[in-house]
């Protein structure tokens, strides 16, 4: 059925007159992004191959792909991070392209290089671009070289003088302190090979500098096999804005607008929106131009995102480039009308940027829509967003016009601790920000999830904050400053008790009626999952 629908849609596309970009695409990812990629491939008429670990044998993305290949046990290092297993899967199924999604191997030159060696197209930037951008110091240097302002800090690695003679260590410490004084406090120590907040330390007091530097370097060495660190100024009340970029083999690079991702905790994004609120067309053009400059400096092919800090005084300072599809790409799609995954596939097949993309890029500084996304993760927002694994007992996402739900689970899905806790991305779009926010609020209220704690209550709270609603208090420290979950959770706990007390007569009568039945087990649960839950969580 989907194939027939897909070919009908394809026939509407001008650039599809001579067939799909690839005969068969292997999707080297899992969860919501794997489903979204598989859907996009089918829309273009490409056959698909899913890969899965043992933990995902029953996952939705596996069922929805045309073919499936098991690539190993649950730990990512043995499955989704195994270049050899993924290349073997592509060879075995005759896939001619691999889409890595985000995370896992998406930015690893190793997969891109292995694809090239095997004659398979890697849907993403060239291996040397990935290598250059994977080192944040190299990316900073590349940006600085073409005159793009970077966050003030060191342009080279700083040394902490571990494992050397005490004299050498002493002079290295002196040098580190001098460099830090030059950058100014508070500052951030970052890992050159870093990502996701790992190997990152904020230092407010010069006395903490050396200890923090050593800790960050050790953490980076353990996590990335590279202990190189550098120093950046910590900018108070800064916003995180980023530019969506696309580039083709001819070297044409365009920006498809920007996103604001200031709502974060521990450097992980919770909410993203497009466009960034409060910018005028001139500021947008300048920001997009900076993104294109950086992309040009590293020879960008396919899709990437350039991240910037927006300082309270209105300056854009380059942070880094993510050389892949971003988690939050959907809000840009809703605003620009461009399907970024379709474009990635066409670009990977060697097509130049389409007229539709060029037109969308022309309009990007004066957007006429606003979109916002809430990341729905299996996390406990009352306890520092700690992991909340479990079996999903109810999954009823809202459905309405102007909403988009990219999800990776359903009732009966087991949320394990092996992988990222992201369950779904809930997106709303409207002609303006207020409308988009109102639609998202309604959608959050309609989203029914059972079995695991999720970030839903955080999002509901966020949309009620006047500072966020008016976009006057957007900064990356907003969540740390303003999120006070304890009273909210306590009120909800009492409501839960009251709800059960109110329902007691019905519940009790029901349970008394059900108790004598011999096959009780599954009859207890409305969705018939009791036995499975008991077995799997006990």
């Amino acid at each position: 059925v989907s194939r027939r629908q897909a070919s009908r849609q394809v026939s509407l596309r001008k650039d599809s007159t001579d067939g799909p970009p690839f005969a068969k695409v292997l999707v080297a990812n899992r969860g919501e992004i794997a489903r979204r990629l598989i859907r996009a491939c089918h829309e273009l008429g490409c056959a698909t191959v899913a890969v899965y670990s043992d933990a995902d044998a029953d996952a939705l993305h596996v069922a929805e792909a045309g073919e499936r290949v098991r690539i190993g046990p649950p730990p990512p290092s043995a499955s989704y991070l195994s270049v050899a297993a993924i290349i073997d899967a592509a060879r075995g199924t005759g896939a001619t392209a691999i889409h890595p999604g985000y995370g896992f191997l998406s930015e690893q030159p190793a997969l891109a290089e292995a694809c090239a060696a095997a004659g398979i197209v890697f849907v993403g930037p060239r291996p040397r671009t990935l290598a250059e951008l994977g080192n944040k110091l190299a990316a900073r240097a590349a940006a600085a070289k073409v005159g793009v302002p970077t966050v003030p800090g060191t342009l080279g690695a700083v040394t902490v003088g571990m494992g050397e003679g005490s004299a050498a260590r002493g002079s290295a410490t002196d040098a580190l302190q001098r460099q830090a004084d030059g950058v100014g406090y508070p500052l951030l120590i970052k890992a050159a090979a870093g990502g996701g907040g790992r190997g990152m330390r904020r230092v407010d007091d010069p006395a903490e500098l050396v200890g923090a530097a050593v800790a960050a370097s050790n953490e980076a060495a353990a996590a990335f096999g590279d202990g190189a660190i550098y120093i950046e100024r910590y900018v108070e009340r800064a916003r995180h804005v980023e530019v969506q970029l696309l580039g083709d083999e001819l070297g044409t690079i365009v920006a498809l607008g920007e996103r604001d991702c200031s709502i974060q905790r521990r450097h992980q994004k919770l909410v993203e929106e497009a466009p960034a609120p409060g910018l005028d067309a001139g500021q947008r053009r300048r920001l997009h131009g900076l993104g294109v400059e950086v992309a040009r400096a590293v020879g960008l092919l396919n899709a990437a995102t350039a991240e910037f800090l927006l300082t309270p005084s209105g300056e854009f300072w380059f942070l880094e480039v993510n050389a892949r599809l971003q988690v939050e790409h959907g809000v840009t799609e809703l605003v620009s009308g461009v399907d970024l995954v379709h474009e990635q596939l066409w670009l990977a097949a060697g097509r130049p940027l389409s007229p539709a993309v060029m037109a969308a890029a022309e309009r990007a500084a004066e957007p006429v829509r606003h979109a916002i996304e809430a990341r729905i993760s299996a996390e406990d927002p009352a306890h520092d967003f700690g992991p909340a694994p479990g079996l999903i007992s109810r999954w009823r996402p809202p459905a309405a016009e102007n909403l988009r739900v990219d999800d990776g689970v359903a009732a009966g899905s087991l949320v394990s601790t092996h992988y990222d806790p992201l369950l779904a991305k809930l997106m709303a779009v409207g002609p303006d920000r207020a409308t988009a926010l109102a639609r998202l609020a309604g959608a959050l209220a309609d989203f029914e999830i059972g079995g695991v704690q999720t970030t839903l209550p955080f999002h509901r709270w966020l949309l009620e904050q006047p500072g966020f609603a008016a976009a006057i208090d957007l900064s990356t420290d907003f969540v740390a400053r303003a999120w006070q979950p304890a009273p909210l959770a306590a009120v909800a706990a009492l409501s839960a008790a009251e709800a059960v007390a109110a329902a007691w007569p019905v519940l009790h009568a029901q349970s008394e009626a059900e108790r004598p039945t011999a096959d009780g087990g599954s009859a207890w649960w409305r969705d018939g999952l009791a036995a499975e839950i008991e077995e799997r969580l006990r």
Partner: protein
Amino acid sequence: VSAERLRLEVRGPAEVIVELPAGGGPGGEQPLSAAGGTNDPPPATHLLRQPPADSAAGRLHVEVVVDGWRFEVVAEEAHRAALRERAARAAAAHHAGGHATVRAQIPGRVTRLWVSEGEHVEQGQRLLAIEAMKMENEIRAPRAGVVERLAVAEGALVELNDELLIVGEPAAAVAPPGAERP
């Protein structure tokens, strides 16, 4: 009909034990949603029946999601709860001391071990860390005592409820070290 009183134990992002009349308030007229200001929209509340986690008759396990906050509520008539607890206290008195088995509350990988077998630990002392979903979770000693058995090593993958270690009697309360080692 006078409403019976219920004891409700709420577990989740916030925890509370309350007694409330069955049927929702003295008049029993309240709907499933909690009481709120008259102009506030009622919070989105969903009740999901859970399988009985224990065999005790008259105890109901219900999953309740209020405004996205997820709780597990165990409800039973208050007088039955009081009886049951009295019995449990009596039983516990016989088992004071003894061994505390520390189990994995979350599946993941053991990234750090701060203690070794035979070591004395204080209540609340860090024992080990389990990494799950890119987060490190510290496991602390439930009571003071000697680490009698260490069932995991650094790097081990543990599943939910796996035994991690056993904290035994404090050193002073047992035979001299080595005396009873197998």
